[in-house]
């Protein structure tokens, strides 16, 4: 490969996971994960509970440490080098199942915290930025409330805005809607769809199959710490290849 081509490709590749393995004690959670995510690609990860979905995406921003193999994010290898870790965490935003907003800070402060302390953005600028993203998730009027006063759906949208304030190039979602009441799921999914439409690179662990069909470029099915199948959504849902996938889909869509 010529150096030029390699650079070009590197620019196109957002995340490159090669032969990644991880153990908890002697429990082999992730086994030989290989995954390449192109810039702008939207990927949905599904799989039964305990199959290692969370662990995998948490390895991408080093909330968990992998033991073998290689993870390269935005051309930076995730190693034990703190500088690289910091750099990657700035590029990668993450939303959690339980929102994890900071309850002692207002919505606005939640959003300005990281830009001010990590990116050293001046306060005024950070606030403008925060308001911009809060408008985008459609809750600018709640800016001075505390997280405890908001509904679950609103909290999750704040969490998305908070990640966006770091202006990440990649967003990770770990079951963002599974702690929400049904009527709130839609508002969060709508926000995610908007994000997807703007070309954000996204990795979503979710069981919202409607969302997967609508925006995903690729669906990945994991089981027992391995990637069992991946395909385009139409193919994946209509024509699953693996027995495990079929079983999973029948359980999740069956009723």
């Amino acid at each position, binding site marked *: 490969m010529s150096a030029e081509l390699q650079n070009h490709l590197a620019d196109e590749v957002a995340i490159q996971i090669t032969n990644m393995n991880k153990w908890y004690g002697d429990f082999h959670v992730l086994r030989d994960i290989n995954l390449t995510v192109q810039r702008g690609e939207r990927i949905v990860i599904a799989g039964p509970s305990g199959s290692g979905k969370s662990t995998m995406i948490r390895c991408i*921003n080093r*909330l968990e440490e992998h033991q073998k193999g290689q993870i390269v994010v935005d051309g930076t290898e995730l190693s034990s080098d703190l500088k690289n870790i910091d750099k990657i965490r700035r590029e990668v935003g*993450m939303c*959690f199942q339980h929102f*994890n907003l*900071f309850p002692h800070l207002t919505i606005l402060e939640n959003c300005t*915290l*990281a830009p001010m302390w990590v990116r050293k953005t001046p306060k005024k600028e950070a606030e403008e930025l925060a308001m911009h993203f809060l408008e985008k998730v459609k809750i600018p009027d709640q800016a001075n409330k505390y997280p405890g*006063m908001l509904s679950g759906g609103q909290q999750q949208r704040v969490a998305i805005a908070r990640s966006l304030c770091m202006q990440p190039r990649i967003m990770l979602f770990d079951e963002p809607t599974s702690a929400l009441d049904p009527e709130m799921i839609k508002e969060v999914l709508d926000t995610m769809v908007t994000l997807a439409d703007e070309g954000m690179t996204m990795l979503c662990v979710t069981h919202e199959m409607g969302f997967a069909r609508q925006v995903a470029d690729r669906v990945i099915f994991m089981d027992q710490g391995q990637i069992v199948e991946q395909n385009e959504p139409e193919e994946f849902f209509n024509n699953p290849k693996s027995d495990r996938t079929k079983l999973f889909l029948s359980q999740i869509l069956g009723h």
Partner: protein
Amino acid sequence: MKNSKSVAFVREGMIDQQPAPASQIGAVRWLKDNLFSSVLNSILTIISLLVIFWVLSGIVPWMFGGVWNASSLSECRDILNERYGNTHYACWAVLTERWQQLLFGFYPAEEIWRAVVAFVLMLVAIAPVLFESVPRKLLWVTIAFPFLMVWLVWGGPIWGPLLVALGFVLFYVSYVVLERKSSTLLALIGSLVIGLVWWMFCVGPLSEALGSALPIGDLERVESRVLGGFMICVIIGLSGIALSLPIGLILALGRQSNLWVVKAICVGFIEFIRGVPLITLLFTASLLLNYFLPPGTAFDLTLRVIIMVTLFSSAYMAEVIRGGLAALPKGQYEAADALGLDYWQSQRLIIMPQALKISIPGIVNTFIGLFKDTTLVMFIGIFDMLGLSNAIRANSAWNGINWELYIFIGLVFWICCFSMSQYSQWLERKLRTGHH
């Protein structure tokens, strides 16, 4: 006539509220429910009444028949003999004569206003920490209070405390500046060095120079050894708690950390301190501390005691804060990590504000314990209230008086500790029901 077979029913007039039968309301009901609901209960009530009667009949006449004006115990007894024909009554006169000493020790009488001002300032300074509804502006008093207290209580020109305070400003400013340039840890170390240099090498000469050039606010100096009574308990307790907070915080973090050397050191320290009685540490302060310091350093016993008390309470504080840390969900750490905050930033901005808030009731309880323990200083020759009660008894005028002094001391402690524990319970209830 209604058709008795029909099940349909329409009420024509509403029934007004009727008074309940006498057995269901008022004093009768209350007595029945709370005092005589069963045979056992009635027996308990009677026993309780007997106990109350027995105690009160012994104490009430003694208390209220007491003498308030006399200059010695024998004079007091003479008055009582004259009045009642016996001396089975209190002699409160000792308090009339010595209350100032019990509260302020041997603090010079004409300077006592300073101690009072410091005490009032202390209440103002603590208010915003304890109650959220108090205006936040008062926090400035809180910050200024330690320096004001040292100046007011010990006297001397105001420059010393002012320059020390300036050192903190310097420390903070350099921290902020360095933090913008480098990492939090480096900034902390750098500004600490700057602060230390200022405190160790600049404050002394500067305050002397300024003191002779501009003798502003030059209060008369008061020696540590005349401090005593209630005042010394407050000073030791308050400085112990305030100083132990940062140390306890670091110990708690160390105990939680996964660096095993750090962890082992912190656990060792905490368990050692919690394993030995405070009195052995106080004796260490009075007997041994001079062995551990460079030859020739001799400093104030009060200061030595404060150091020991600080070490002592920091171990307990560490455990309280550790409880607060453990109560935080793991998600808070993860979110901070995911946003790219480093360890110190996430501790300072995310973890500590929440953990400390949960810990306030525990901290107050630690303080109550420490405050009661300050009575132990009497064993190493500091005249707290109990020490003074011995001194008063040693005076031939009051030889043999016990209860009046004990009751006064007990009451002072009770008022302080009871109100603090009520506060901490109130706060606990509030934290349990509060939203954020």
